[in-house]
């Protein structure tokens, strides 16, 4: 018999650690159990090749709530978020479309491709910012249950109504439209040039089992621009030391408040007795008791794998089974010896340091999605190649480089299964795509890690390797996330909670899901709320 805790958090992902840190800060005796021998879940950086630090899952950061950063003293625990510069998109005809931090430069760059679109860009950003600003109010709040008459839900609904009314009537209609539209249709209301549309549409498919023409992708686009770096909404940053520094820093805060983490401790079952959680049983046979158990795993895994069906309400098992958590993304992380050449750009051009993509049109993106539907990885994939080490010297020694390639689309199941052969072929597709624009890229590869949804599921534990712990579609957002009636972080059993990004506000390294879960737990324990609110811009 081991020690008894006040609360156990299953999974040392960044959200689980956040929940744990707040519970510990509130004075609870908290244990985080983690199946792997390292913490961080999908926010990790590990030395996978001698001398190279890999952020091998998540690779950039924007949604991390700065109020949590500050409140948990994450800077003291080693965290620094470094803003980095935009993305260059290479086209097949030898041209490119760049993203510059300077507005005048950006205007002229877009103008090269379309005069009208250069002018429309400002209108586009303005409208997107309106939507981002209104939705940002809700990131660190628990969604209201629209079917409830409880004072708190009514209050929250009133808060929501007030924020929406603050947009003005016209923009409420516009926002209502926007939420259900496809990225392609939304962008067509601003831009005429296909390359420009494709460039902006990239955010709409990342991590998503939908194409740019699918209704609902406009919201996914927004999900990728509603974060900020120091209040600059839409900006992205890198965590110095790799994304693992976020997890490490939150872990630091957890330790500061006396919380513990147990590694290589995979949970077999959440123990339920008399309608209450009693603790967890580990796969190694040991049992750890606690009246509160928080699952940071995705909802599907939580309810279909580590909870007994008979402990759940009848409909919940089906809800979890039907929960949409589709693997659609892959990653290829590459250690490079020396900087490959991208002849499209002049030597020494500032864009060579940025992220890179390889697109021409929405059609190419949509065809990449069609491959996914047919259980193939995209033959002409969308790749976001982030040159992390250019901005963060901790990734590799001078002269060496680490690049993170995010790939859309890559299915969980392929014909013949994810054999080593298929995995290598997938990797080759990516390298070939990059090589179309950088002939000597291959010559610089020192080591590379290919991660299919299968690998991500196996190692990180995300069902199907879905990076958001569940699709970001309307049926799974706000009070519908993860399921209607379960959006307030409480599980179906007393004492059981959810803290992963399968809950509101969804995927991304935000720490908001974990913080919101902690707030609800503390409320149930009748302890003072210590979870900070966002100071809204």
């Amino acid at each position: 018999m081991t020690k008894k805790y006040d609360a156990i958090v299953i999974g040392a992902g960044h959200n689980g650690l956040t929940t744990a840190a707040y519970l510990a800060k509130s004075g609870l005796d908290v244990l985080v159990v983690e199946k792997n021998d390292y913490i961080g879940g999908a926010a990790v950086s590990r030395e996978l090749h001698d001398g190279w630090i890999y952020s091998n899952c998540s690779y950039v950061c924007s949604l991390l709530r700065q109020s949590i950063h500050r409140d948990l003293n994450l800077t003291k625990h080693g965290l620094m978020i470094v803003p980095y510069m935009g993305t260059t998109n290479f086209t097949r005809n030898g041209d490119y479309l760049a993203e510059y931090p300077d507005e005048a430069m950006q205007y002229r760059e877009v103008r090269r491709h379309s005069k009208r679109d250069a002018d429309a860009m400002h209108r586009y950003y303005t409208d997107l910012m309106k939507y981002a600003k209104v939705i940002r109010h809700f990131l660190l709040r628990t969604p209201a249950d629209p079917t409830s008459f409880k004072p708190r839900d009514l209050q929250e609904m009133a808060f929501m109504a007030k924020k929406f009314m603050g947009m003005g009537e016209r923009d409420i209609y516009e926002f209502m439209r926007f939420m259900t539209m496809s990225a392609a249709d939304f962008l067509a209301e601003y831009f005429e040039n296909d390359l420009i549309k494709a460039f902006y549409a990239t955010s709409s498919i990342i991590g998503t089992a939908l194409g740019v023409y699918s209704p609902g992708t406009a919201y996914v686009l927004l999900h990728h621009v509603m974060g900020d770096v120091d209040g600059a909404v839409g900006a992205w940053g890198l965590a110095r030391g790799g994304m693992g520094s976020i997890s490490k820093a939150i872990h630091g805060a957890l330790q500061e408040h006396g919380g513990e983490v147990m590694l290589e401790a995979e949970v077999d079952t959440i123990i339920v007795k008399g309608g209450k959680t009693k603790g967890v049983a580990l796969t190694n046979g040991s049992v750890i008791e606690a009246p509160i158990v928080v699952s940071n795993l995705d909802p599907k895994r939580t309810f279909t794998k580590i909870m007994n069906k008979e402990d759940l309400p009848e409909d919940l098992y089906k809800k979890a089974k039907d929960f949409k958590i589709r693997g659609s993304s892959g990653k290829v992380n590459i250690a490079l010896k020396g900087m490959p050449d991208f002849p499209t750009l002049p030597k020494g051009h500032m864009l060579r340091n940025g992220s890179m993509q390889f697109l021409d049109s929405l059609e190419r993106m949509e065809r990449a999605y069609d491959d996914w539907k047919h259980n193939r990885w995209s033959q002409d994939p969308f790749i976001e190649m982030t040159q992390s080490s250019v901005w963060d010297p901790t990734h590799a020694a001078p002269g060496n480089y680490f690049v993170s390639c995010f790939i859309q689309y890559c299915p969980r199941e392929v014909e013949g299964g994810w054999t080593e052969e298929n995995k290598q072929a997938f990797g080759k597709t990516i390298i070939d795509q990059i090589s179309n624009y950088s002939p000597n890229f291959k010559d610089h590869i020192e080591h590379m890690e290919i991660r299919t949804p299968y690998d991500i599921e196996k190692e990180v534990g995300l069902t199907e390797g879905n990076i958001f712990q569940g699709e970001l579609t309307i049926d799974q957002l706000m009070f519908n996330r993860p399921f209607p009636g379960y959006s307030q972080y409480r599980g179906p059993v007393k004492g059981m909670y959810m803290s992963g990004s399968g809950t509101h506000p969804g995927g991304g390294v935000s720490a908001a899901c974990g913080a919101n879960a902690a707030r609800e737990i503390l409320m149930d324990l009748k302890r003072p709320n210590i979870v900070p609110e966002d100071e809204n811009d």
Partner: protein
Amino acid sequence: MSKQYDALVIGAGHNGLACAAKLARAGKKVMVVEANAELGGLAATTEFAEGFKASVAHTLPQLTDKLVKDLELHKHGFSFASEHLETLGLKEDGSDALRVTGDTVTGVSQDQVDAYKRYSAQMQKFAKAIAAFWQKKPPMIGDKSWASVSTGIQFGLNLRLLGKTDMREFTRMIALPAQDVMDEQFEDEHLKAVLAWDYTMGNKLAPRSPNNAMINWLYRLAGDASGFNKLPIAKGGMKGLIDALAASATSAGAVIKTNAAVKKVVVDEETATAVGVELADGEVVHAKAIISNADPKTSFIKLLGTRYIDIQFTHRINRTRTDGQTAKMHIAIKGEPKFNGVSRADGRMIIAPKMSYIENAFDSSKYGEIAQDPAMEIVVPTMHDASLAPEGHHVISITIPNVPYKVKAGWETEKANLQSAILNKLEAYAPGIKDQIVASDLLTPVDLESRYNVTGGHWHHGELALDAWWMNRPTYEASQYKTPIDGFYLCGAGAHPGGGVMGAAGSNAADVVLAASK
């Protein structure tokens, strides 16, 4: 200036006629002007070959009892040729078709039959919760009128009255793609495809497209003229209904003028008020209310002229997605058609063996290509009403979704390609049918556009989607049928609730015009 009429309706589509009938029956002096020779617009019945008649719209799932009663359509000659067509999922291998009717299904395993019953019951609840709102003017956030406020409250209340469980399912399922709905409920792939059919018809939607499928399906369930989830057809074809609508209008004094295309809406320059229309032959007809049954783009940009309306409003009309996605083919055949696994071709036959089949056809269309394996909906109206074809002959009416408005290779060549794809598919499911063909008429979205003056040839005058629904249909400030221009109203499918032969847009618009004239 003398007003010749109280109201002038542009276009004698079924909505225009419904609007005119309602106004005339309320004592208004009404004129309807129609560009074509036949009445009915996309529901017009035309003779596509000597002795063979057909219409683009071929069934009446959305027809409501209320409309039939309000306009006394039975008195004016309307009746059903069949109150319900069974939906038949055809099987290429010749085995018995899957049959869906009301809340029963045959040709699938018992657990699927049970699942379908459960599904039907739930869908009926959802459909009922929003049924009233198809036939009402949408509310507006800033509209403090009792009609608007009460509609809003009623909507919220109806959802609440579903009860916690169903309301939660509603908020979730409203956004689901057809495929997810089906995968959650059923195992049988063919059943899924047949049921998914009505979720996407007429729109640029595939089984995998989220957000807009459920609203389209619920809209299909809006009709109750012959009961819940029934698929009636009219006696005399669509003409039976259209003639009854016209008779309802003219018997109350309305004047209907055909072959009278409108050149433009006449606007009083001093007051920016719509006061009449100028016809193609130069004649000017004045009226207090000008009500357009045309699609919003045609109404505002072509007929009214953008000079009278604000720029952002114009942009919002101009951005409505009007590229049609559906083609129509009428085939005249000698003898009775014989489909695999169907004893009598008297139902609505669907060729879509599984959802991915539809999805693949959609995928071709989104790149402006013609699907070689088209999904199709086939009705043989002459099985119910012999008057539509010469004796011993039949008309096959086929709806083909997933046909793009813009084809990459151009319609000059692609039309033949589409025709052969359709006929090949038909032959596969009805061997020998090619030899029975006497004549045929294929209407691509571009043909529908030019023949019926509908932008993009779109069935619904614009995508029927959550982003273009209710307060946002066609856009706020025109969603309550009145427009920013005094005296100018919308009554077509581009307004709430959308296309399909329901008459609600026309009827709702008439209510608004009547209220304004008080």
